[in-house]
């Protein structure tokens, strides 16, 4: 194996790593800010991908054209889920994280079941093939470059929004200490509501990106991403968008470069190998939560 091949693998890993990072952002945000483990996260990605398919079939919209509509549906679903399922639990005195985990697990099953009902178990695909760029010896598929760019942009937007805006600062304060934030006049209910909507927005955008780079949609799709998303969140650190993106990039590159030395069939284990290593040597993740 020569260095050109290794560089091509590196580029390929970075491009897919962007999708991995994006697919973990929403999970990281809700977990980091609200301490709610969104077990439905993978199903949200699947739902968005299927909505993209539906818009293509019905109106001929390609995934990029349907991005705005689908992500707004994600925001609305986030609002609904928070108001109907999560808010009551969070506001209880005897609130426990297990309750929200079980609740979101249930939400995920409902989404999955409804998706099977709506689209069946058949595999669907959204045709979206863009040409590839060749830079020297490196091939860069434009569709992957596009999704990578969107993933990086959205990560930076979220990072700076949390870092610079009043609302972002309030959310970070809430993540640090709910009681202290309330003393300072922060309304947790309102901010949790917004956090949920943002997290769902990111999950739905990830679903659209997934439908672009990985055709063959199935209601099981969520299972493919949820395990990786958990590993990435732990790897990058909770509640830190940069951490989630870097975690995704590390995983993408690790999976890609692993091809140099081991069979590709071993790749699914890499995410969990990284997870174990991080938990042993740096349990807080590579990046600290945003404070």
């Amino acid at each position, binding site marked *: 194996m020569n260095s050109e*091949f290794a560089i*091509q*693998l590196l580029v*390929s*890993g970075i491009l*897919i790593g962007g999708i991995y990072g994006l697919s973990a952002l929403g999970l990281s945000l809700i977990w980091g800010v609200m301490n709610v483990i969104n077990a439905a996260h993978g199903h949200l990605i699947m739902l968005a991908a299927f909505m993209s398919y539906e818009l293509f079939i019905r109106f001929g919209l390609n995934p990029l054209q349907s991005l705005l509509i689908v992500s707004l549906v994600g925001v609305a679903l986030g609002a609904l889920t928070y108001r109907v399922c999560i808010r009551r639990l969070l506001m209880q005195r005897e609130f426990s994280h297990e309750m929200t985990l079980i609740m979101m697990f249930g939400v995920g099953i409902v989404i999955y079941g409804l998706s099977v009902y709506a689209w069946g*178990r*058949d*595999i*669907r*695909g*959204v*045709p*979206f*093939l863009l040409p*590839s760029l060749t830079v020297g010896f490196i*091939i860069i*598929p434009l*569709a*992957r470059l596009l999704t990578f760019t969107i993933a990086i942009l959205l990560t930076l937007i979220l990072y700076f929004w949390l870092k610079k805006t009043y609302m972002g600062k309030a959310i970070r304060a809430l993540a640090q200490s709910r009681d202290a934030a309330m003393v300072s006049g922060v309304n947790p209910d309102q901010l949790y509501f917004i956090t949920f909507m943002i997290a769902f927005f990111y999950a739905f955008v990830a679903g659209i990106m*997934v439908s672009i*780079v*990985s*055709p*063959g949609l*199935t209601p099981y799709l969520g*299972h*493919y*991403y949820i395990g990786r998303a958990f590993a990435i969140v732990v790897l990058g650190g909770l509640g830190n968008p940069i951490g989630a993106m870097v975690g995704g990039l590390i995983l993408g590159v690790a*999976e*890609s*470069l*692993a*091809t140099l030395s081991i*069979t*590709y*069939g*071993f*790749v*699914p284990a890499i995410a969990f190998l990284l997870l174990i290593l991080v938990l042993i040597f740096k349990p807080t993740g590579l990046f600290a939560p945003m404070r």
Partner: protein
Amino acid sequence: MKQWNKMAAFTLVLVALMFFPGCIGQEKGPEEIVIGFSASLTGKFDVYGREGVDALEWWAEEVNANGGLYVADFDKKIPVKIVYYDDASDKDTAIKVVEKLIVEDGAHFIMPSYSSTLTLAEAPITEKHQKSMYGWAAASDSIWKQDFKYVVGTITPSSLYDKEALIFLKEHNPEYTKIAILYKDDPFTTSIAEGTRKMAEEKGYEIVFYDKYPKDVVDVSPLLLKLKPTEPDIIFVEAHLKDGMVVAQAMAEYDVRAPVIIYGSASAAVPWYDLGPEIAEYSSGSSQWEKWLELDPTQFPNWYGPTWTSLEWFDMWEDKYGYEVDFRGANMYHSALIVQAVIENAGTIEDPEKIREAIVDLDIQTFVAPFEVDPDTLIQLARGNVIIQWQNGEKQIVAPDYAATADWVIPMPS
């Protein structure tokens, strides 16, 4: 006195007839030939289970319309009866269903559940009761490596999926010598890959790449980048539809090309064309059966059963049931025809050894496929998948030659 003697004799005869009614009037043998089917009507195989039931019931209607099947042992035609229960696509339930079909319903012949996994789980039950079972939806070779005596292969075993493609390419394109095989890491596709590799090596091909990708794959680009420099002439992607789509798109994106690319059963599925013409057009695949399969009965001295074409049968199915049948329904109908031939040739529905002999001796061609098994294992030998290629948005059968509806466009246009 004579009158009394006559009356006594008459009474004795009447008494004898009461106790031995079989002596007159009643015919020998059972009233029905029971075909038991463990049908996956709910659970993950629900659609396929329903297709199996519909095919089997249609076959029974046709048979019974002709008075049933002739059984030499009883010298008469006996109607067939289909008995089925839902196994919920579940292994444990399926085993119980098969036991119940044999013990309580007296099934003479068994159609197993959908899938190799469930068929394999049910096989010990049919073996115990010495009932022949016809694997209408079981392709995994592993079933026939267990020394079962009564499990009959009726569809192409996974190791022979690419048989017709290799025969065709060796004959028509001998200039292609290098093969790459890329496969999903699950038992079924691994078995196909192993079989293809073995057949290819026997035919003198050089295997330049042989590697697998995980089941839950979301990206295969690293593996394709590894494959690309080997510059194969033929690429076999042993995949199911979902992962096949992932591979095909990544191949297009990373410009991985070969004169022939065969995506196994993935590209034979209709949703394959959802990938769009840039990717799907001219891609090839293999299929157990296609509705375009038009066989001429006069070309087959061993033709058995209805002489309709697959398309005629397909249209009749749609009229009858209101939905489109696929290879699963065809395979069940084909398997039912095999049961029919076995009964007629064995002349018995109860003697397991005679039935096994009839299975081994059977060499027939139905409107779906041929049938001939290995005498030791009963694995299917005669059948090979038809090879399809997408041309102008339509699936065309391109191999074997006798079934072709179009020429195989080789090399694939860019």
